[in-house]
């Protein structure tokens, strides 16, 4: 992936999120979102190392992951707005965006849950003779969830081609890492015999390089790798914070954290006119995407429980 492609991805995610926040404010998106602003280099760098048939699981803060994996922004906007043309036909929303055709096994709203899902999917793909790998994204909060640690054990034990990508943005909602994590984040993975690295999660090129090495290792049958990407959440945990004004980060900390902006870091690697061209291309794409989403139909309330079962059952009562 080229320098300009990586820039396009981080810029796309940034502007998508800024527009999504506007749609929350205008009421087009109900329920709010968990903005990915500030963490774009992780999604962009990791997904740039993947093939289209590789799998990912995402999180409640997952818009960046699915955009970087290649979803159509119009269908993602439509999903956030609960429209029939959305990725999940408006049945999933921000925290459950999935596109199985792109290997996106879904964003998961239970912290730490998807580590084992990605591990199982990767194990199954290998058993079926495929050379795909799976990536499970999660935050620093997830490293204190027992089921994720159980997943590390299974993945290492069975040498599963899975990557565990921890986005350490410093906070589990309002809980700072230093108050929540005894020992170290990478130490958890190392305890299970998984190679673990702590990398600069603000630089897409560095994330791409580390992920490429981990993917190569997994495809070679050498098992899982753990990457701690040190990043910073520029915006709220959730858009409810825009009104709640929770006091857990100082203005000095916010200023320092925001000073290393992945969009600027990658943008500085482009010639000014190239950057301007990409920015215009992204705006045009998002203008069209937002227009399509806003014009899409709302689902029919009579179909509220459509898709509940894959094998429909006789006798279900409503």
């Amino acid at each position, binding site marked *: 992936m080229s320098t300009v492609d990586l820039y396009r991805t981080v810029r796309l995610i940034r502007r998508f999120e800024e527009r999504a926040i506007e749609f929350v404010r205008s009421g087009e998106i109900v329920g709010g979102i968990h903005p990915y602003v500030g963490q774009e280099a992780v999604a962009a760098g990791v997904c740039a190392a993947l093939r289209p048939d590789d*799998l990912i*699981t995402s999180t409640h803060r997952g818009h960046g992951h699915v955009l970087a994996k290649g979803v159509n922004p119009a269908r993602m906007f439509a999903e956030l707005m609960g429209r029939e043309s*959305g*990725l*999940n*036909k*408006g*049945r*999933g929303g921000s925290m*459950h965006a*999935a*596109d*199985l*055709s792109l290997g996106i*096994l*879904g964003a*998961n709203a*239970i912290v730490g*849950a*998807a*580590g*084992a*899902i*990605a*591990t*199982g*999917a*990767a*194990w*199954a*793909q290998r*058993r*079926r003779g495929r050379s795909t790998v*799976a990536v499970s994204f999660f935050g620093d909060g997830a490293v204190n969830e*027992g*089921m994720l640690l*159980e*997943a590390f*054990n*299974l993945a290492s*034990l069975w040498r599963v081609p899975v990557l565990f990508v921890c986005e350490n943005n410093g906070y589990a909602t309002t809980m700072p890492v230093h108050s929540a994590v005894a020992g170290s984040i990478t130490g958890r993975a190392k305890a299970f015999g998984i190679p673990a690295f702590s990398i600069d999660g603000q630089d897409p090129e560095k994330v791409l390089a580390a992920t490429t090495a981990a993917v190569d290792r997994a495809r070679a049958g050498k098992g899982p790798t753990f990457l701690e990407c040190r990043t910073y959440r520029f915006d709220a945990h959730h858009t409810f914070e825009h009104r709640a004004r929770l006091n857990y980060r100082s203005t000095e900390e916010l200023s320092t954290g925001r000073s290393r902006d992945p969009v600027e870091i990658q943008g500085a690697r482009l010639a000014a006119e190239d950057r301007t061209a990409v920015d215009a291309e992204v705006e045009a794409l998002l203008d069209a995407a937002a227009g399509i989403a806003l014009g899409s139909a709302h689902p029919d309330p009579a179909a509220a*429980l*459509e*898709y*509940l*079962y*894959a*094998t429909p*059952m*006789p*006798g*279900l*009562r409503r």
Partner: protein
Amino acid sequence: MPKLSYLKALNRALGDELDRDPDVFLLGEDIRAAASNLTAGLFTRFGPDRVLDTPLSEQAFTNFATGAALAGLRPVIEFQIPSLLFLVFEQIANQAHKFSLMTGGQCKVPVTYVVPGSGSRTGWAGQHSDHPYSLFAHVGVKTVVPATPADAYGLLLSAIRDDDPVVVFAPSGALGVRDDVDFATLRPVPLGLGRIARAGSDVTVVALGHLVQDALAVADELAGEASVEVFDPRTVYPLDVDGLAASVARTRRLVVIDDSNRTSGFGAEVLAVAAERFDLDAPPRRVTRPDGAVLPFALALDRAVQPGRDDLLEAIRGVLTEGGRQ
């Protein structure tokens, strides 16, 4: 005709499905050594990739199965202890069950969860003796509780072939049941379809799993005074309401025996259906575990909180004497 035990029928169903469909695999604790006997002989026959012995990591391997299912396989998980289902309730009710709707029908999660030895296991006390089928019915996970060896075989086969998560409870009290079975007649039993285990005309007794035997025994005991029909729904969810309605239309009296705690249990649901839909000659009754029951250890105490034949007999006589029959 050869004898087939309930446990052997489950084992046979697993072997037949592993043989028929390369996407099926088993996982769980101690399944290589077949500690519960459910998987006896299968590791030798199918090897470690199809019979995957797991560490004690129930939450992870339950989600692992969901991931494998999303990638196209059909996992079957054995839980040796019914109460482990509490530990993985999130992974089944909140993960596996919800993927189909949440993704707008993009994917399916065909995982089967089998509990060989659910309910009281006699002497295993508080944390090994639960029977939480009503919980899964409540959240909408397909849930079956077979009563006979042929049904154990046929319902497990259907559960594995179904494209949704299905929980199969094999009650401890039913595992030893042996029937004369012509193996050539074994076939899938559709989910959601009940059966008349014994025809009768005065009262319908709804019973599941091991309690079907108790209901049949009580029906025999009452043979001189009343004609008891035993209806075995086989599937807790979805409930065969039409089959039950047809039975009650004949008998106009209803008793349900249910190994759940009373409040919000399967028995409560049957009575709610009766109140909404059935025209009865006497108020229906339920025989259940008491509210909030924790199974105590001592044998007499264990038996005291389980629904038993004496309670059922009394309930049947009660509905027969009410409403002007006697």
